[in-house]
């Protein structure tokens, strides 16, 4: 295989593994803040027990997110030097602002948030939690600004093959940015909700039925039930925005080859790039036209009318997987909502369903990202820079040698082995923690009511790093 395809696989592997963890931490931070504030206002210690359990998960996810994120910041240079050469004037400052405003904020206050509960005043600890959460969200903001700019570039001109900014406002608030940012935040909210619900349900079925566990399930299920309809509406708006700026991507998502009126919604099909048609298609007539144009007979551009378009199969299928997982989330969370309202408690089978749904957010997130990223191909920056042109720098020095594809094959193999290992370690550790950590027995007398802090430190506890 050549350097281009190996670099693409390597970057895809890295970014796919990386996104799993920010997808959790962005929203888990807000959940932690919620638990902390509930404790501050009720002084009920169950909230702190939820907080402590989930900070440990947060710490683990954060560490995985940091190390895989660093890996990617280096790969821009090691594998995609042409990217920075041509759009560095835009990508550079955006990434720079991420490091300056977000990375340092979250990384620095994380220490206080994790280990400072007994070292600082309660309000300082709460503030640290807020700052970490703002940091993770800001980090998502800058990254999504850059990603959205790559999808729908604006506010720049090309001079000698190099992008020069004409308006930072247009670069930052490029056409797809608001939709993508909100869509991603909601996706993170759903990922974290189902993670909390799933792990807590697992703890419950393993016999640990404390108040803290029940409250964690309730908060997360209700949160998911509230977020999913909003996500469906935002997703639809995001789709309409894509239709306007990247119609070829929507054509691939819909598996629509010919420009026509009243296109059907295809439930199942195998797109065939040789014959440029779909096989074994199962469809609902005219529904796609209605969704995309809000008119049953609306005309939608087909793939055959584009000189270049993304590969259809991967985009078509990942889009369907995302939608399917989303609908499953809708069903499961609303079912839980129904049980809470009608029955006041959850039936046993529901805990099993929640446990099975623990990582559902990951599947939807990855499928969504594949849809949008593969949907941008063959371009790295839509209409500006082709992916194939980004693997070599556009100025070449005498000493410059291309990275041999054997080196990339080597690094790719190791990355895959390491990431597989880490994924197994993460999931097994998560369930191990769920089985083996019980809330601590807190004695009211230990607390100093004036400061809300503990007077003594329990010496029998394990040292938890």
């Amino acid at each position, binding site marked *: 295989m050549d350097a281009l395809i190996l670099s693409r696989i390597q970057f895809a592997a890295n970014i796919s593994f990386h996104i799993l963890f920010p997808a959790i931490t962005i929203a888990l931070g807000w959940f932690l803040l919620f638990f902390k504030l509930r404790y501050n206002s009720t002084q009920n210690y169950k909230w702190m027990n939820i907080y*402590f359990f989930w900070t*440990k998960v947060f710490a*683990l996810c*954060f*560490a*995985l997110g*940091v*190390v*895989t994120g*660093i*890996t990617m*910041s*280096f790969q*821009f*240079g*090691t594998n995609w*030097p042409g990217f*920075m050469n041509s759009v*560095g*004037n*835009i990508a*550079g400052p955006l*990434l*720079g602002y991420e*490091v*300056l*405003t977000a*990375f*340092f904020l979250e*990384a*620095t206050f*994380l*220490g*206080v948030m*994790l*280990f400072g509960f*007994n*070292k*600082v005043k309660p309000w300082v600890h709460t503030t640290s939690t807020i700052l970490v959460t703002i940091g993770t969200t800001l980090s998502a903001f800058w990254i999504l600004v850059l990603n959205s700019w790559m999808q729908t570039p604006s506010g720049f001109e090309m001079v000698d093959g190099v992008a*020069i*900014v004409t308006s930072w406002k247009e670069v930052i608030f490029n056409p797809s940015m608001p939709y993508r940012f909100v869509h991603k935040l909601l996706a993170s909210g759903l990922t974290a909700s189902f993670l909390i619900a799933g792990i807590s349900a697992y703890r419950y079925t393993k016999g640990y039925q404390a108040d803290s566990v029940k409250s964690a399930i309730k908060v997360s299920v209700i949160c998911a039930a509230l977020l999913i309809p909003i996500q469906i509406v935002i997703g639809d708006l995001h789709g309409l925005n894509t239709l306007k700026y990247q119609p070829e991507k929507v054509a691939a998502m819909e598996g629509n080859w010919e420009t026509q009126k009243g296109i059907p919604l295809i439930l199942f099909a195998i797109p065939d790039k040789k014959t440029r048609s779909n096989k074994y298609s199962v469809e609902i007539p005219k529904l796609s036209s209605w969704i995309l144009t809000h008119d049953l007979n609306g005309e939608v551009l087909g793939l055959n009318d584009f000189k270049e378009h993304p590969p259809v199969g991967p985009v078509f299928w990942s889009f369907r997987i995302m939608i399917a997982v989303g609908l499953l989330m809708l069903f499961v969370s609303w079912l839980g909502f129904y049980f809470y309202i009608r029955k006041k408690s959850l039936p046993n089978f529901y805990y099993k369903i929640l446990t099975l749904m623990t990582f559902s957010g990951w599947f939807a997130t990855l499928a969504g990202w594949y849809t949008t990223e593969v949907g941008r191909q063959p371009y790295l920056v839509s209409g500006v820079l082709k992916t194939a042109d980004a693997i070599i*720098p556009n100025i070449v*020095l005498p*000493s*410059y040698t*291309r*990275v041999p594809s054997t*080196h*990339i094959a*080597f*690094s790719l193999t190791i990355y895959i082995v390491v990431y597989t290992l*880490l994924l197994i*370690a993460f999931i*097994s*550790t998560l369930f*191990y*923690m769920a089985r083996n950590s019980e809330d601590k027995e807190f004695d009211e007398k230990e607390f100093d009511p004036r400061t809300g802090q503990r007077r003594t430190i329990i010496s029998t506890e394990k*040292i*938890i*790093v």
Partner: protein
Amino acid sequence: MITQLFDSSGRLIINYHYYSGDWLPLLFAFLMGLSMLIYGLLDGYDLGVGMLSIFSKDKEEKDKMIASIGPFWDANETWLVLGVGILLIAFPKAHGIILTSLYLPVFIMLIGLIFRGVAFDFRAKCEKKFQKKWDIAFFAGSLTTALAQGYMLGFYIAGFQSNWQSIIFSFLVSISLAIGYCLIGANWLIMKTSNDLQKRAINWARLSLYGAIFCIFLVSIGTPIASVRIFSKWFIYPDIFYLLPIPIFTGLLVLLMYSFLKKLPLKDDKMCWVPFALTIPIAILCFAGLAYSFFPFIIPEQIAIVHAASSDSSLKIVLIGVSIVLPVLLGYTFFTYKVFHGKVSPLKYD
């Protein structure tokens, strides 16, 4: 201002012009150097502690060592991202060339950083039977990271030449940097721990110092072989006299550290912070020496700093952010060090 540079045989290698507008790239080169220096010092101590963790006598001691870096390592590593970030933002042309030339060592460093960063969390949360394995991963990750960084530094000094001299030289720098990190780590432990562990840390610091002195000696001999240009930049009359303070002060500070390491621990644990504090000026002097050797190049002998810079408008918008954020950043970094100052206590979430 026009500066011309000739190689040893008098042939013109580069001809570069400075204009008053060039202050932006130069300022960014300074900021990049500054973040790399801060990174070296800060991640230096936690990588050093990581490497020394293999010598801990039991689990309790290891926990203490790791607890001493627990609240800090995340933020320390961010300086590396900032350094590479500035390279990427301000010098995109150099960024691609440097990182593609260092493809394998960068990759090895990243694998090291991955294992070290996650081992830190996994070792405390995983099943008991896996704990030893994560401890080894923590050690190995720290060692690999330090060695890979040293190799990259050496290869960079040698101007990315793939001949055997420069490869041997790179390995030499690689080992030197790892020993240097061990020294910073041991000095950190002297400051953060007490009793038995502190005594052992003093011993580690002494051994690392001997190693470091030996390595500086070897690297000094090796540099003229690896890079004629750097050698001629230093050993030329009258420049050598202006430059003499750098090695002299470094030598004096090393001697001072040596004498402190011989005397410590003092009664009531006085002065336990001195060896760590001494590493800071030493690191600054070494770094100044390096910076002098490279200037005005960003890629040795090939691209000058001003020629690799991105557009002024991009640099300006980043500069605005840097000037606002940097003071705040230093402020809250100081705050966390204050929160966790003093001797290490077990890390707890609650």
